[in-house]
Every structure is written in C-alpha cells, then in structure tokens.
C-alpha cells in the first residue's frame, strides 16, 4: 500500500478515523468569542434542555438500514454546521450539544426516537428525517410535544406545519423551472415519466404532467411508469422507451434502483449525450454508486450542486471534505441539511430565545447569506425561497451548472392548478 489515496483499505480506515476523531474534536473547540450570553431563564421558559453554557439539539437520521445510504450525508452536514456554529461562539452564547438517534430506516422507529428526543431529552431543535414516510411519522409527535424539526429533503409538498422548517425544495420549486428550461433550450415536446412507486415521485410526476399538458404548448406525455422501491430490473421499460422515442426521459427513481436503472440504460445503448434525460432525484451522492460513466450527459434539476461557483460554496466544500474525507461528495440534500442548524441559530438569535413558539414566530423572513447555494430566506409557509438550477452530469461524477433561475423561486407547497 504505497499510495494512500488510492489504496482502498487505508482510505476507508482514514475516513473512519476522521469521522471518529472529528466528534470529540468539535466538542473541545476553544470557547472563544463568547457572545453576550443572556440568562437561561430568559431564553428558555418552556423547560428545554438549555443550561448556562449549552443547548441540546437532536439529530435523527437512519444510520442503519437501507436509508443509511442516503441519510449519511445529511448527518455529516448537520454535524459540520453545528461544529462551525460552536466554533463561532454557539447560539445565544451557548455551545450546541448533539444527541444522535438512529431512525434505522423504519418509520415507527422514527416516531419513537422523535418522542424520546422531545419528551425525554427536551431538545431545542431536531435536525432529521429524509423520506416523506419518516417525516409523516414524526409530524404528529412534533406537533404534540411542540418541537422544532428542520427537514432537509426535496419533497412532494402538500404539507405545512408550524413545527417544521423545510430546508429542501418542495415539488413545484424543483420541477417547473427544469421543464421550462428543457422545453425552451432543447425544444423537447414529448416526455416519458418514470418514478419509484411512492408519494414523492407520484406527486412530482403529477405536477410535471399538469405543467407539460397545460403550460407548455404542443407538449405531451407519452408514457408514465412506476416501479416498486428497490426494483432492480429495468430492461422492459427501457424497451418501451426505445419504442416511444420520447424527447425527454423524466426520471424520479430513488435509492438502489437508481444504480440499476442508469447502468441498464447505458447497457441498452441509450446514449445520454443524444437522448435528453432530466432527473430530480440523482444528486452527486447517487452518482458515486451509479458511476459517472453511466450517467454522463444526463441533466438534473435541483437547487444545489457541489460544483457551484460562489464564495460561500468555495468555503463550504473544503470544510466538509476536511471533516469527512477528501473524496466525500456533497449532494443537494446534504447542503440543505447544512442549512438547518444555521437557520435555527439565526432564528434563535433574532427571537432572543430558544422557546419553540418564539422560534416559530421569528422564522419567516430569516435570511441566511452564508448558504453554500448562495442566499436563502424562510417563507411564511416555512419553506425556503431558493434558486433552481440545472446541472449536466460529467464523467467525473460532478455536475456542470448549465442554467440557474434569475430570481429566487417562491415555495408553493399547495400549488393551485397542479393538484
């Protein structure tokens, strides 16, 4: 093993070591730059876990089970954000303490752990959940115990809760700009919609279909297909695509199925440099598994790509890779997860309190100028104003940004005319 960077064993060991070392290191950072820290009684009137110098938050993601593949990045981003906040003096003069729980890819378990974090640990905020199913499972818990959840994933919308800040995009934000772009620049007229069979792809495709049929002149949907989660065989649908010859394949396939789909698409001789494929579910994280060669040429529509050029991102990416390993990639959801702790800190400081009701009241209008994606602001409906971008997948597993909306796109979780 002469060359560390290429030898798989030592690479993994190093990544593991870094992960293990980073946690205590983050906790032991010098508590420099104390902000004027207000009295505990003043910032916490509802019995949250706040002491004179610490405040406790929860991280609730799956680190075991099938969803661990996707949720690992979110955990890493949240830990990075919290470490950075602690380094810069904490929140209201208090260092953030983390209690991490494992959702284990099991929705009832998420509800159980959420209850523990709120009822037993009295966390001031919880950063977590990934799938819609886990969010739906914990939502009643957060509403009952009046907790605060920062939820990072792009999702289907149709939801708004005072106890949740949605730091990812809801479906219309993510979908409409991309469809308009592909129609405008590629002149695409016919679309084949694909998805994994659950609520997010189904709702997203419904919105896409309404938009294609009602707002894009002369465009039509030539096929729509759903596959069970974890499906690994796509040859039949690929033949169907070959038969219908759509201008655009619109794919919302998730998880392990993704890898199978793109590998088989490539193997079936569909060349993504000639056939336009637009996806809203493949981030840089997924490309690691898929392999850059299999997906190069595809377009993805989301709000963040690792390759984004702006001063915030140029600081964020090295910081992330310093903490979690030089080869770790950062996808859209990872970045959205990074926003959570920062938005919470800014909100708490504006509210001058950790009390949930005050956080809720102070949330609308909170701006985060240091966001790696550029600039975000919390809307009254608890979603974020954000730009939408289209990236083109490259062989090296990165996206090249080819389009970005000129303005922030308004979040609209209950879109009129798209239901």
């Amino acid at each position, binding site marked *: 093993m002469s060359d560390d960077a290429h030898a798989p064993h030592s690479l993994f060991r190093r990544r593991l070591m870094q992960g293990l070392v980073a946690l205590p290191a983050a906790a032991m950072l010098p508590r420099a730059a104390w902000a004027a820290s207000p009295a505990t009684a003043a910032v916490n009137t509802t019995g949250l876990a706040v002491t004179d110098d610490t405040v406790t938050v929860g991280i609730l993601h799956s680190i075991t089970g099938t969803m661990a593949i996707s949720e690992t990045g979110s955990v890493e981003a949240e830990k990075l954000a919290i470490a950075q906040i602690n380094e810069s003096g904490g929140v209201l003069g208090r260092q953030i303490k983390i209690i991490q729980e494992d959702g284990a890819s099991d929705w009832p378990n998420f509800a159980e752990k959420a209850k523990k974090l709120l009822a037993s640990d009295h966390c001031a905020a919880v950063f977590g959940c990934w799938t819609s199913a886990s969010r739906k499972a914990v939502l009643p818990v957060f509403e009952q115990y009046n907790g605060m959840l920062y939820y990072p994933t792009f999702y289907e919308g149709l939801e708004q809760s005072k106890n949740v800040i949605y730091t990812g995009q809801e479906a219309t934000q993510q979908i409409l700009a991309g469809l308009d772009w592909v129609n405008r620049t590629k002149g695409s007229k016919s679309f084949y919609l694909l998805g994994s069979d659950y609520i997010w792809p189904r709702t997203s495709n419904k919105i896409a279909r309404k938009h294609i049929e009602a707002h894009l002149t002369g465009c039509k949907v030539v096929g729509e297909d759903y596959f069970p989660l*974890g499906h690994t065989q796509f040859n039949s649908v690929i033949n169907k695509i070959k038969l219908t010859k759509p201008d655009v394949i619109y794919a919302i396939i998730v998880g392990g199925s993704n890898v199978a789909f793109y590998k088989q698409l*490539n193997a079936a001789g569909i060349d993504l440099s000639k056939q336009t494929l637009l996806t809203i579910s493949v981030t840089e994280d997924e490309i690691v*598994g898929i392999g850059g*060669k299999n997906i190069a040429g595809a377009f993805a529509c989301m709000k963040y790509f690792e390759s984004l050029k702006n001063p915030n991102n140029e600081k964020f990416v090295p910081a992330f890779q310093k903490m979690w390993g030089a080869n770790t990639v950062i996808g859209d959801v990872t970045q959205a997860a990074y926003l959570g702790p920062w938005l919470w800190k800014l909100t708490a400081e504006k509210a001058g309190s950790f009390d949930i009701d005050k956080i809720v009241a102070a949330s609308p209008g909170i701006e985060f100028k240091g966001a790696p994606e550029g600039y975000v602001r919390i809307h009254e409906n608890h979603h974020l104003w954000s730009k939408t971008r289209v990236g083109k997948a490259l062989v090296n597993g990165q996206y090249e940004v080819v389009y970005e909306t000129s303005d922030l796109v308004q979040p609209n979780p209950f879109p009129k005319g798209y239901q």
Partner: protein
Amino acid sequence: MLAGYSLGELGSIMAMQGFAGLILFSVFVLMALGLAVIFGQMGVINMAHGEFMILGAYVTFLTSKLFTTYLPQAFGVYFFVAVVLAFIVAGALGMLVEWALIRRLYKRPLDTLLATWGLSLILQQVYRSIFGAREVGVDQPDWMMGAMNITNSIQIPINGLIVMVLTTFIAIGVYLLIFRMGWGKQVRAVMANRAMAGAVGIDTERVDRITFGLGCGIAGIAGSAFTMIGSTSPTAGQLYIVDTFLIVVFGGAASLAGTIASAFAISQARSTLEFFLSGSMAQVIVLLAVIAILMIRPQGLFVLKVRR
C-alpha cells in the same frame, strides 16, 4: 399501445424484449441457485444469502480498485479475477459459518433460520463499518459497458450477455457437480438419509461444509455479476432477497430443476407484463399469481418424492 408503429420497429422491440426476458431469467437463476443448493441439499435456509451476495460485490469493488492502482493495463480483465475471488471469499466465509454456527443446529433447521438472520445483521454492519454507509461505485472496463448492435435497431446489453453466459456456466457446473460426479452422489446420499450415508462411510460433516460453502460461493459470484447491473451498498442484499425466496419457494424448494423452472416462469411473466403495464402493477399481478398457484400447489412446482 402498439398502434402507430411500423412492423420493423415492433419486430426489433419484440426481439429486444425477448432478450430482456432471458436476461431477467439469468439474473433470477443466478440469485436463487446458491440458496437452492443449500436448501435443497441441506434443508437449511440461509437468511444471510443476500449478504453473501454483497460480499461478492464488495470483493469485486476491491479487486477493481487494486487493478486501477497496481495493474491499470490489465483493468479490462479484472472482472474475471473478481468473479473467482468472490467465489473463494464468499465460499470460505460460508464454510467458516457452517463450522462455527450451522453444524451446531442441524437437528433444529428452523433455528438456523434465526441464527443466519442474526448473522445477516452483523454482516450488514460489518460492511457499513468498513466501506461506509454509502453506495460504492464499481468501475467497469469499457468493453463491458454499452450495447452490442445486432442490427441498426436491435441492441443487446453487453452486461446482460455476460450475466447469461456466467449463469449458463454455473448452472452446468452445479449440474455436473451434483448429478455427474462422485462428490455429488455423496451430497445426494446425505440428503436422502444422513444416518445411512454416515454408516456407509461418507464424511457427512465434510459434505455439509462443502455444500454450504458452495452455495455461499455461488451467491458471491452472483453479487460480483450484479455490480454490472445494480448497486453495491451494505443493504443491497435486501433488494434481491425477496425475489430469491419467491423463486425458491415457487420452484418447490428441494429441487434444482424446480428452481430453474420457477425462475423462468416468473421472469417471463414479469418481463412481458412490465412491457404492457406499469412496473408496479406487473409485479403485483405476478405475485398474486404466485400466491394463487401456491394455494393450489403449496409444495411448489416440482416436488421431490422422498419417503418421510
């Protein structure tokens, strides 16, 4: 949905669809063969089958990394090395597990099911600790990617062809091993009557260990092959396990021919229905059909006549 297409177009789609069915068939056989060997010959259900497959996939991943680092000029053929290594590693682990765990439980076959389930949890966490929770990307040499153009409009996936060839070799190999060689005779003798086989001088423990190792080794090969068509992650084994069990159950668990017949039936039904219906719907219909048939014929398609 077939209106409005020319005959030529339809012809080539049908040809490709036929291949899609055959590829699915090969994938299913490859998945189920290891499990069927162990269950059919030993009556043991290996719940960690999926994890042995993923072990093969990770071995392939490591092999590809080693080749890129030390033998980049030979990267084109790394896959064959990886298949062999996957067989050896998964087989060795299988024999180890047999020695440490399974042999203590032959009198309680239902309990092996629970023990191997515990094993599968441990293996998943081992993979996660070593390789990280994320998927790993297994690179393939260029010749293994893309499609082979048979005519202008008929393209056959190369990775599918490789799976087909591999499956054929392994199926023939297993057939020869079990039905044509002396060792296979011993295996079958042990299965038919363990006590009597022992009495005539067959080392039943050794036969068991090698059979279990063989089944796990085949799972390793399957995992290695599936790096071409699917994902490699600590929990990817779970993606295959449901189909695998269905095939073995439907085939009538004690019979290798039954496994192959059932893989054929399910793959053809699935592949055809998927073409005409949505993927989810196709799977639902196939599963309902499987239930209906199991209700009528609970022993599965093929039953081995054994005196109990």
